[in-house]
């Protein structure tokens, strides 16, 4: 790629997604979290009683749990939570055609290139704006085969039995403080069902946008991949830059049934005023395969450890994680794999890049339960530090209760070396470009797994971030 082309046409000083749309929401709850807010959310969604009870119990659990002390710095969070809106409803009801989405909201997604991607490369698209899904659509061919791809609210309404069988069972309310919070105030997210033996050949995509200041977004996603089915789900997230903090806390529950394959890709590019505390977990049954591809580029603080519970014999779990931390950012990410059945295999590969005063933490748990004989796992975490001021920490927890488990662990920390830079520049490559080339090479094992348009976007971002990072 010619150097000039990659640098021209980019707003070098600006986060590309920093634009605000003027939209008057049809409803906005009062600031902060209270029982009243929880009741209002449930009422707006016309939920059955059991769900209101579920929410109210979750609120109690949330209030009873202390703020976690082990991860990123959450000291300022309580104050932020008092000031944000937990529920903002942007339009009356969800649409299935872009034409029916209000112009201002539609413009936002046009700018983000979503309708275009939908036409070209996706099987279905969901778009969430503030607290609600404003758009959801699935290609007819998949609908005919029984695929369900809808907002989580419509999942509850239209498929109550399937919904209730799984909702809150993969990630129990009390799993952690923020899964409890999400269980109390969840709004938006996707409900996905892939029927037995159906293979989607293009991905489903959900797009999450926070537009207004002091906003909290709490999407909840439930995905059921039935026996022998295959699919790929992608989520993307952006928001404008505000001087005040915003908050995002999602809960993603996935069941991958016997011999099914599923991949969940996240490209998180929140603005740098966002707290992003997400719980993602998949139950992986016999012979099934689950892959998390987790890209964390934005946010102020992210705490997120996608996990695989390998419950059936021969299940395989994979977590590929990439984190970028610039000034003022802390990515506390990694993954968790629990081997609970024989002959299960897993792999965690984590790569982080820290620049300026950025900080990246790898935090991972690998657990092999007694009885999970012949389990195999490999954990690899590599950190790249760009500047002297950049920071990285590694917390790899490994708990093995089975004698014949085969577990490998490797960790490395490297700096972009003067010798590497000199080698590339001595071939005529300018220093900024040489830096970007080294970083791209570092993440290559993960970038090559991304769909092309995301790989291109990731490379562009790195090019942009490496501008002026030399010295």
């Amino acid at each position, binding site marked *: 790629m010619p150097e000039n082309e990659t640098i021209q046409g980019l707003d070098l000083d600006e986060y590309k997604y920093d634009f605000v749309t003027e939209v008057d929401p049809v409803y906005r709850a009062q600031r902060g979290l209270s029982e009243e807010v929880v009741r209002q959310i449930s009422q707006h969604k016309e939920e059955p009683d059991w769900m209101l009870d579920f929410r109210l119990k979750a609120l109690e659990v949330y209030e009873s749990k202390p703020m976690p002390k082990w991860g990123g710095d959450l000291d300022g969070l309580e104050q932020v939570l008092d000031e944000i809106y937990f529920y903002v409803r942007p339009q009356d009801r969800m649409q299935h055609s872009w034409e029916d989405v209000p112009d201002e909201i539609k413009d936002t997604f046009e700018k983000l290139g979503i309708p275009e991607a939908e036409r070209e490369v996706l099987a279905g698209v969901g778009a969430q704006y503030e607290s609600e899904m404003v758009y959801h659509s699935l290609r007819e061919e998949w609908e005919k085969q029984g695929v369900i791809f809808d907002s989580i609210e419509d999942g509850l309404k239209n498929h109550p039995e399937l919904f209730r069988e799984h909702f809150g069972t993969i990630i129990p309310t009390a799993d952690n403080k923020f899964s409890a919070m999400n269980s109390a105030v969840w709004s938006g997210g996707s409900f996905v069902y892939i029927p037995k033996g159906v293979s989607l050949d293009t991905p489903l995509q959900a797009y999450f946008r926070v537009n207004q200041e002091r906003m909290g977004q709490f999407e909840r996603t439930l995905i059921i991949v039935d026996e022998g089915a295959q699919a790929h789900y992608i989520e993307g997230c952006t928001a404008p830059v505000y001087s005040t903090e915003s908050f995002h806390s999602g809960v993603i529950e996935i069941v991958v049934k016997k011999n099914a394959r599923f991949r969940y890709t996240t490209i998180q590019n929140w603005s740098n005023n966002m707290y992003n505390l997400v719980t993602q977990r998949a139950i992986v049954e016999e012979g099934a395969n689950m892959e998390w591809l987790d890209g964390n580029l934005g946010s102020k603080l992210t705490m997120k450890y996608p996990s695989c519970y390998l419950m059936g014999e021969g299940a395989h779990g994979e977590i590929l994680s990439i984190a970028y931390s610039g000034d003022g950012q802390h990515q506390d990410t990694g993954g968790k794999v629990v081997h609970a059945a024989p002959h299960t295999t897993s792999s965690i590969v984590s790569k982080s890049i820290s620049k300026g005063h950025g900080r990246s933490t790898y935090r991972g748990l690998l657990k092999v339960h007694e009885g999970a004989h012949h389990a195999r796992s490999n954990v690899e975490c590599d950190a790249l530090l760009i500047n002297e001021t950049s920071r990285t920490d590694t917390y790899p927890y490994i708990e093995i209760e089975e004698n014949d488990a085969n577990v490998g662990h490797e960790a490395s920390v490297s700096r972009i070396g003067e010798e590497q830079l*000199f*080698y590339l*520049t*001595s071939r005529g490559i*300018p220093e900024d470009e040489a830096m970007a*080339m080294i970083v791209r090479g570092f993440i290559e094992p993960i970038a090559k797994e991304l769909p092309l348009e995301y790989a291109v976007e990731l490379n562009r971002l790195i090019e942009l971030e490496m501008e002026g990072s030399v010295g």
Partner: protein
Amino acid sequence: MTDASILRIEGLEAKVADEDLSILKGLTLDIGKGEIHAIMGPNGSGKSTLAKVLAGHPGYEATMGSVEFRGADLLDLEADERSQAGVFLAFQYPVEIPGVSIANFLRTAVQAHLPEDEELDVFDFTDILMERMEMLEMDVAFAERHVNDGFSGGEKKRNEILQMAMLKPKLAVMDETDSGLDIDALKIVASGVNKLSEEDPEMSVLLITHYQRLLDYIKPDFVHVMVDGRIVKSGGPEVALELEAGGYSEFETASAS
């Protein structure tokens, strides 16, 4: 050889950037267009420092003297600009760049050598790369390997010659290219350099080496002996043979006294 001079080094003194001690202590050398020069010297004489200073390594600092390359002040240019101007350094220890393919690396480097408004045609580039690899008896699959990552010593040196063949320098500085090579690998590397010399008779070469061995395969026009940061003797190919017989001790005592 004033008109045909391509590199003129005068009274060059240089040191490691953070240290006080000079390594080059007033080095003077003139290389004409198309000439092959060899600098021989014992360990620690400053040979590799000279190579790095010429290529613009940021860890070294020239404190005195001048280096004129094709009429321009070379010391004034950054490393990438020196390469674009036609200087090439074949590294003694080529550096690993994991995750970056040789093809991608070379494409970026060749593009950087073109004028700003000119865009490299990817198909032309691939044709040229294939042709050059064939010339150097390299397997096509080599282009997809990551730069020097997991390469044997011989592969690394061959990769240096491939880069040289793609960038077509006016001056190739070869820093201990023979070190770590067995005789077969040495022959392949030397034949690559000779082919490039034949192709472009105006290309000048500066061979930096500890041993006479390399000079059996690449014939220098001039041989210089470097001791303690200075050239202490210059002459024709016979100088190398004298060294082979007598070693460096004669010069080292001379320099110490």
